[in-house]
């Protein structure tokens, strides 16, 4: 992985003018202190409903610039929806979301696409274009948005593939890649346009421990080396705690806990204790709401 960081650092020197420099470079995590005033994403009073069911109800959140932020919560609490709101894939019913100084409310498609060029997203399944090779997948945003000569595109793509350790798999098709490799190619594609914000939607789902470890290290190293802001949605409490600077726990449409992974572990809240401890029953009940058990069993009509 040493060569990975070296390659990426060379690229960072050529980063676009006006872009925020990395706040902490490659320092150890223990040196980092959260600077909450420097947020790259501000979410204020966001309401969002689907088919009459409230997903968010007055959500407030600040995503600090240059850090790895983890968003956790029980299933169905709207973690992926939050990412879709931040990336403008869906619009909030009320409230404001400001991403890198741009308010998403009322933003036109053209301006939204301009904003998205400063964002990268790693989808749960990688979402590689299945008719293109790994190389062409990574080259895709460059071919769509730039007029760079083929030689430069080739260099950029190979650099990014080297950063995720898959330069040798450049010519393979997505169907020939394993789940972990698939996500690493998607990660290379997500960083090829040098985004400011990198969003990961459940990046560890279905991965073996080795692939999971590789993705974890890449999240941390790419964030530090490229000066990104990373937002990771995940259920894997222990894994994500090893790389996250700040953790947000969502429940009931709000942020119920926020802090460093260490702070979260000792947070005085039942929902946090249940989630972090992986307890089957608690504020999030084991049983889905149902009529009386015995009454239903003994009912003449089968209780259905």
């Amino acid at each position, binding site marked *: 992985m040493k060569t990975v960081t070296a390659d990426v650092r060379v690229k960072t020197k050529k980063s676009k003018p006006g872009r925020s420099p990395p706040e902490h470079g490659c320092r150890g995590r223990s040196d980092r202190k959260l600077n909450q005033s420097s947020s790259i994403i501000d979410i204020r009073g966001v309401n969002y409903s689907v088919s009459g069911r409230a997903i968010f109800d007055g959500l407030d959140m600040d995503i600090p610039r240059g850090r790895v932020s983890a968003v956790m919560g029980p299933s169905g609490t709207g973690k992926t929806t939050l990412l879709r709101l931040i990336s403008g894939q869906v619009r909030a019913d009320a409230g404001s979301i400001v991403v890198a100084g741009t308010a998403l409310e009322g933003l036109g498609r053209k301006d939204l696409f301009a904003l998205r060029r400063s964002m990268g997203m790693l989808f749960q399944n990688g979402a590689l274009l299945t008719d293109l090779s790994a190389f062409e997948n990574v080259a895709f945003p460059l071919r769509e948005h730039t007029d760079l000569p083929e030689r430069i595109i080739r260099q950029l793509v190979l650099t990014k593939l080297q950063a995720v350790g898959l330069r040798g798999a450049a010519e393979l098709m997505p169907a020939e890649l394993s789940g972990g490799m698939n996500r690493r190619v998607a990660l290379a594609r997500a960083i090829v*346009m040098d985004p400011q914000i990198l969003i990961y939607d459940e990046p560890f789902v279905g991965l073996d421990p080795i692939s999971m470890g590789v993705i974890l290290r890449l999240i941390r190293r790419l964030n530090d080396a490229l000066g990104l802001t990373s937002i990771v949605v995940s259920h894997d409490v222990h894994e994500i705690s090893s790389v996250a600077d700040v953790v947000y726990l969502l429940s009931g449409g709000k942020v119920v806990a926020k802090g460093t992974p260490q702070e979260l572990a000792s947070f005085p809240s039942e929902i946090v204790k249940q989630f972090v401890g992986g307890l089957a029953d608690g504020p999030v009940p084991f049983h889905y709401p149902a009529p009386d058990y015995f009454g239903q069993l003994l009912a003449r009509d089968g209780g259905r």
Partner: protein
Amino acid sequence: MFGDLWTSLIESLDRLGDMVRFLLRILAQTPRALLRFQLITDQVYNTGALSLVIIMLSGLFVGMVLGLQGFELLQRFGSEEALGTAAAIGLVKELGPVVTALLFAGRAGTALASELGLMRATDQLSAMEMMAVDPVGRVVVPRFLGGVITMPLLAAIFSMIGIYGAQLVGVQFMHVDGGSFWSQMQSSVGLRDINEGIVKSAVFGVACSLIAVYEGYHAAPTAEGVGAATTRTVVTSAVIVLFLDYLITAFFLRG
């Protein structure tokens, strides 16, 4: 019952309006897509070249059946020599465009709808949006244009092979005079008949391609959603093609 019919009618109109808006979105992106002709030629190959075998085989068999039935009917009136005219008119004006459109919907239309539906289900379209690339311009428009270009060509090939099928049965098997077969066809089939066939196949090309890309693009991102979109593509295309066929035929007969 009337309530259900009314709801169904409103839903159909709603869907039709949505489809027209989608067509306008496609047309707005078309000039830019034309600059990347390679994407379109790839789709012409996918929808056209890969459909050739089924189109040619179907054309041959339809032509052979037409030759048999036509011969059977015409010999009752002692005018077997008109078989060439009957087969050519039937194929060029009606069977060529209509059967090609139905086969296109079944072969290329379902392929387009399921491909787009799967791209939706596997987040490939969302990934493009996140890369600030409009999937309509990059994925939908080339597929739509590929279908529009392909359909008249396939219909022409279908009609041509069909006429040879009718000739095979009529002239070779039933011993209709070959000279009469071709000369009567040449003197009776006019440019207007050919134009009608071209207009029909072009309109069917737009309709079938639009239905396929619309259903695929708007498919629910599940296995059932993709399956339902594929089924709707075939059913809607078949009904619309037959309806449009009547309208265009009536228009040409009136004119």
